[in-house]
């Protein structure tokens, strides 16, 4: 690289304004009919459609959340009756988990960025990709139909025998979730094959961006664990409609068996939700500190490590279900390992900032929030895995606070960071930085104000899924509801300025952050086939911001 080259001029990557330009319109305007969107095989358009849908699902789930929080403002009935409340928290969980957190980052940003980051023209199976979007929508329609016609009151964990005895309409919602599972498997499969076969020359495994590593680890879990969920959901439907008797003790079945099967999927599933955010954050911390990732291999391998041990930790959801004491010990130790892998990542992210060049933009603000939620949420997870502490905490608001901190906190932070970071890449427009920071502050504060009181509620002994609660828990509940309103306000603010930016936003530069992430090696927004002219040559690892003169001497700390 010649010393004169500017930051965006990576060898071979120059999206120089050349004569090709007119013949390669951006993917956004290449075909403007409705059909050209709905039947597109372009991963970028599919990614954008995912983004639109998951935002809608987020809105639905969020509305349920506010209803639940408002109901809990007073100890007795506040705005809805008990049955409606039970349905509301169930639907909140089902929508948020199956329709937002699992598909959000892989569907929207994984689809959009993965091929760009691998220098590929598309994912390995474009048709399967479109199918997985439609499977998600079909599943969503069936589940939402079920919610409107009866709704379900089991909680998103569907524990038997309650779920097979309740008179609410469990079957369509479980069946919807079953179909959504296929969508998840298809996406995972597609990403695995894409990563293995579509890497451009020069992108070796250890030159893959960390977002790709994270998507790859996620995809492995999706493919391996989701079938278990699919089967167990079908069994519950069968049990409810045809009285199989697999989980019903009245017929010789075992309800704890359900919990094993359910958590065998759902524990890894929490990593399906959180690993993508780890990936997003690795990209963002590098881009905004202008630094190579500190301990690239450790971060990459810890994703795989989490994916692997994540499969052996499910028993920590059942410490007080009557499983043997020995089992509890084994699961407790295995769970600790997840904590260690997460800790490695955290240290390496902080290490990345060390000697960096930090630009405190909106995505970086979300990185700060993320760092804090991950540390605190992860540490409370380890605290939970400490078997004796789990005894009083299990199934109280402490659990609710823990998994919102880690799973929701991390996902939301990453999702918002990703929207802001990749907004110019995806839409070619800039959002308003000032408003970005304001809403980031509102969201992070609102989040804390919502869930910190819930940790304390858990300590005080308030069980989760309570419609009414003893008087003494009220103050903390009011605090939590107030926090939730702040959080909602934050989202409303960002919705407004983002939509505004989409329409009236300033045109963005090709690489407004001067990022050296591989996805910026093409135009913004990219043309339909991703790259104009010769393919970029990948000689450097992603996010290599080293002064070429000093490039030879890595500095170990």
């Amino acid at each position, binding site marked *: 690289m010649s010393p004169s080259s500017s930051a965006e001029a990576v060898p071979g990557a120059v999206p120089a304004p050349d004569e090709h330009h007119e013949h390669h319109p951006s993917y956004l305007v290449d075909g403007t009919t409705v059909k050209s969107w709905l039947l597109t095989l372009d991963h970028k358009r599919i990614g954008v459609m995912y983004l639109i849908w998951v935002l809608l699902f987020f809105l639905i789930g969020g509305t349920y959340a506010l209803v639940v929080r408002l109901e809990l403002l007073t100890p007795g009935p506040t705005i809805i009756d008990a049955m409606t409340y*039970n349905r509301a928290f169930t639907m909140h969980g089902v929508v948020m988990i199956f329709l937002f957190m699992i598909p959000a980052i892989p569907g929207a940003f994984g689809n959009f960025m993965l091929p760009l980051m691998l220098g590929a023209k598309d994912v390995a199976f474009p048709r399967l990709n479109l199918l997985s979007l439609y499977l998600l929508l079909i599943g969503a329609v069936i589940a939402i139909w079920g919610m409107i016609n009866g709704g379900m009151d*089991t909680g998103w964990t569907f*524990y038997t*025998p*309650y779920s097979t005895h*309740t008179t609410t309409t469990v079957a369509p919602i479980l069946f919807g979730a079953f179909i959504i599972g296929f969508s998840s498997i298809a996406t995972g499969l597609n990403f695995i094959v894409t990563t293995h076969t579509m890497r451009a020359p020069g992108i070796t495994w250890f030159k893959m961006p960390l977002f790709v590593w994270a998507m790859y680890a996620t995809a492995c879990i999706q493919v391996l664990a989701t079938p278990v969920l699919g089967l167990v959901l079908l069994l519950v439907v069968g049990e409810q409609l045809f009285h199989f008797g697999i989980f019903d*003790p*009245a*017929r010789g*079945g075992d*309800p704890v068996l359900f919990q094993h099967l359910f958590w065998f999927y759902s524990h890894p599933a929490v990593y399906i939700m959180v690993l993508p955010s780890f990936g997003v954050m690795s990209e963002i911390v590098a881009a905004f500190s*202008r*630094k*190579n990732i*500190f*301990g690239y291999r*450790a971060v990459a391998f810890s994703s795989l490590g989490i994916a692997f041990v994540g499969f052996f930790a499910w028993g920590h959801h059942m410490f007080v279900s*009557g499983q043997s*004491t020995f089992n*509890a010990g084994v699961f407790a130790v295995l769970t*600790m390992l997840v*904590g*260690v892998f997460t*800790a*490695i990542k955290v240290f390496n992210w*902080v*290490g990345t*900032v*060390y*000697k*960096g*060049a*930090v630009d405190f933009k909106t995505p970086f603000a979300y990185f700060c929030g993320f*760092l804090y939620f991950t*540390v*605190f949420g992860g*540490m409370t997870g380890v*605290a939970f895995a*400490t078997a*004796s*502490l789990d*005894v*009083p905490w*299990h*199934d*109280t608001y402490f659990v609710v606070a823990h998994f919102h901190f880690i799973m929701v906190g991390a996902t939301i932070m990453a999702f918002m960071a990703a929207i802001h970071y990749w907004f110019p890449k995806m839409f070619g427009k800039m959002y308003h930085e000032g408003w970005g920071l304001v809403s980031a502050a509102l969201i992070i504060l609102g989040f804390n104000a919502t869930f910190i009181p819930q940790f*304390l*509620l858990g300590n*005080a002994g308030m069980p989760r899924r*309570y419609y*009414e*609660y003893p008087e003494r828990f009220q103050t*903390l509940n009011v605090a939590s509801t107030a926090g939730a309103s702040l959080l909602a306000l934050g989202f409303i603010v960002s919705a407004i300025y983002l939509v505004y930016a989409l329409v009236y936003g300033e045109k963005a530069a090709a690489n407004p952050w*001067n990022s050296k992430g591989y996805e910026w090696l093409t135009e913004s927004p990219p043309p339909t086939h991703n790259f104009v002219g010769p393919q970029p040559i990948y000689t450097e690892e992603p996010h290599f*911001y*080293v*002064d070429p003169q000093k490039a030879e001497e890595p*500095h*170990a*700390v």
Partner: protein
Amino acid sequence: MNELLNKLLFLPEQASTFAERVDNLHYFVVSVTMLSSFVTGTAALYFFFRYRRRSDHQTTEYVIPSVKTEFLFVSLPLVFFLAWFVIGFRDFVFVQTPPKNAMDVYVMGKQWMWKFSYPEGPNGVNVLHVPANRPVRLLITSRDVLHSFFVPAFRIKMDAVPGRYTQTWFEATKPGTYQILCTEYCGLSHSKMLGEVVVLSEEEWDAWAKEQRKGSLQNRQDALADLSLEPEPARMADQGQKVAAEVGCFKCHTVNGEPHIGPTFQGMYGRTETLQDGTSLRVDEAYITQSMMDPGAHLVTGFPNVMPTFQGKLTGPQTAAIVEYIKTLRTPDIRTGASQGPVYEPIQ
């Protein structure tokens, strides 16, 4: 210190021997969590400030962790986590292992109440009486769906699983009343499935137990006369049968499946009855109770409206006992039995 942290963390008072053990670890874990979040956060903040960007095209050094650093990153959390595990698992074994001299109480969760019964006889709904400073083992099961027995002040919790008995134990340290909550979602009135543990001092306990035995003293002497020294546990359904005979239910209702002046009790519970107004309903606890109190409300086709009301003639527990009795008269289907679960021998 304990008191301060207890307040700060909103923990309930410590009223069992286990509570103190858990809390000590809790304090340790929470302090480490807070401290490490603080250290990571401060380090990050310092870096954000110290290394803020000075020019748009700034380059950076290529910094990578040394093996020593990576080793530190892995071993530091691992050491803490393992320390927590060791202490936590030791305490967990403690709470999972009832002492041999523990007194037994059977606990049955049911939508939406807790039923307690003592091997020597007395029963109770939603109120559990126990002596202070004596280990009490709870043998927990459920009649319908999953429930979870939780006493925050004792820091104990155990799921009630239909078809199984689970167990836990506690030793209450001070007399008083402590709330019981259900922590496993169990349907409509999950949040109203509350109860209380009344911890009595030694003398109060003796008095209470003596009072309770009065009711079953008769049984006891019969049993002694039988030369069988086993005291008969008082069963609600048996009492129900007795009450039903006393108040004269059997003048009109049979228990062998034959309709008489009124419908037979055999298989009545859970049966779908066709009513004279053409509708139908499923016989459940509410319907049986209503039929005793207001017999004309829902008349079953084919029977005259001749039943007298028992309103005011039956006490609450008697009514409940009759309902329980009728429920035992189901035509044997697979539902009976299994959900009663195995019976544990008391540990000797």
